[in-house]
């Protein structure tokens, strides 16, 4: 294996995936390298979440392959401990009687082994994860009593408790308001620079995400484009993704997306 291949954390090759009985992803090929921060972007129903779930081994590919650390998702074994996964927020029952610290500890369940109780190493990892998301003082709070942003950070802490090399987030800002979304990306960008892990996040929020990631993959069932955000996100790509004349305005390095659809209200398409 060449050193460059060794550096590949996720590789998709001619990956096609069916969701229920429809083709959700078609012929996807790209590599994610160690230490990169990828944004998987696309409108609703573009197959972003399906791609993430296929990478995690929750959905079996129709054809082609996906490999994480050189293994197919079903054969990962102990390599699973290198992967932190942050699910979509709405999927979690926050009324569950669970304190933040205990929820974060659940992230380490498999690593601890069946029948084992958390040891001092485990609690140390949990405390470090909580410190990284700046929630040490909320550790004893019931998860339902956290704000939206805090809940999201608690879920990230749960993934970080594994001390992963790869962190995958599914629509991390879906439940946050605009101001909190900006703040969240600032924070995760900062965290990525400090921790030097590979980050992959799925979002429909093209404008904000493209300012913070090091690479993007634009999906609409097919891979419309992938690469550096400033090179990839031209009007051609956006048209391929959204099927309309969207474009970016740039103020220096900061792109802003403009979608000239008069009655389009993005908040309505995400109940």
């Amino acid at each position: 294996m060449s050193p460059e291949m060794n550096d590949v954390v996720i590789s998709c090759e001619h990956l096609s995936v069916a969701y229920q009985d429809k083709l959700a992803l078609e012929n996807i090929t790209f590599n994610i390298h160690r230490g990169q921060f990828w944004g998987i972007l696309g409108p609703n129903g573009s197959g972003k979440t399906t791609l993430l779930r296929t990478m995690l081994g929750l959905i079996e590919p129709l054809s082609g392959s996906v490999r994480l650390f050189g293994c197919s998702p079903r054969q990962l074994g102990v390599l699973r401990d290198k992967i932190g996964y942050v699910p979509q927020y709405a999927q979690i029952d926050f009324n569950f009687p669970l304190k933040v610290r205990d929820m974060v500890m659940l992230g380490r369940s498999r690593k601890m082994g069946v029948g084992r109780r958390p040891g001092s190493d485990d609690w140390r990892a949990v405390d470090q994860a909580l410190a990284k998301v700046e929630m040490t003082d909320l550790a004893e709070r019931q998860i339902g009593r956290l704000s939206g942003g805090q809940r999201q950070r608690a879920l990230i802490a749960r993934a970080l408790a594994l001390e992963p090399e790869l962190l995958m987030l599914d629509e991390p800002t879906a439940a946050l308001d605009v101001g909190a979304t900006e703040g969240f990306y600032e924070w995760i960008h900062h965290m990525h620079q400090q921790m030097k892990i590979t980050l992959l996040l799925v979002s429909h929020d093209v404008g904000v995400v493209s300012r913070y990631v090091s690479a993007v993959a634009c999906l609409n069932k097919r891979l419309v484009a992938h690469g550096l955000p400033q090179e990839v996100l031209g009007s051609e790509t956006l048209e391929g993704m959204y099927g309309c004349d969207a474009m970016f305005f740039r103020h220096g390095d900061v792109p802003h997306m403009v979608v000239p659809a008069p009655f389009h209200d993005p908040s309505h398409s995400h109940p």
Partner: protein
Amino acid sequence: MEILTFGFMQRALLSATIIGTVCAIIGVYVVLRGMAFIGAGIAHASFGGVALGITLGVNPLLTTILFCLATAWSIAFLSEGRKVSEDSAVGIFFASSMAFGVLLIGLMKGYQADLFGYLFGNILAVSPADLWSSLAIGALVILLVWFFFKEFLLFTFDPEMARVTGLPVKALNLLMMSMIAVTIVISIKSVGIVLVSALIVTPAASAYLLSDDFKKMMLLSIILGVGSTWTGLLLSVWLNLASGATIVMVATVIFFICYFCSPQRRKLRRNIEELRVEVKEK
């Protein structure tokens, strides 16, 4: 107090302690996973197992355990795909197993014996053999919960995360369904097929109202469960009432007390009060 010296009463109290504890523990998972209907479904399905045992002339405990396990696994298997919801699967087995039991009983001419006892339970009629088998099975369930504590917790809280971390989710689900089934079987002699699901759901639902922590919820559920079975049993003896029904009524009264005292509810009321004041000031 004199009544406590009788063997049947001591057995009843021991039985009340065992089933109060085991039902309360299993109930925590049933309530948090929203499976109350499954409890009721498997309990009613056990009627088929009881009838089968009586018809074949073997110990009904054995046939009921096998019958309930088969029912639990069938529900899990049927609802795995997307074609049948768990809800519908339970509904189908709920009635068909009872129908099967009724047909079997009908085939046996002149059989009237303790069917009423199985339907509504009689904790004072628990035999030493019943007691030993419920002790053994109850201990096994508690041991499994202790051993797989964090696996069951993660699976209950976030099944998808459990799958992603590589836990054998299907096996855990089958194991949990089996534990629900055997818990029901050891309880029907005491509280009856019709009432047993209340003993599983009610103490855990009461504990849920008062807890912000999983371990606390389980402990509180056990305390309320055993409290209900003991209070219900002693009340039923004192007032000469049906024991199973009295136990369930006590558990229900406790539930409503918890409901009206729950901190969430009080907090909600306080918050609404504050909002009202705020609106008035504007």
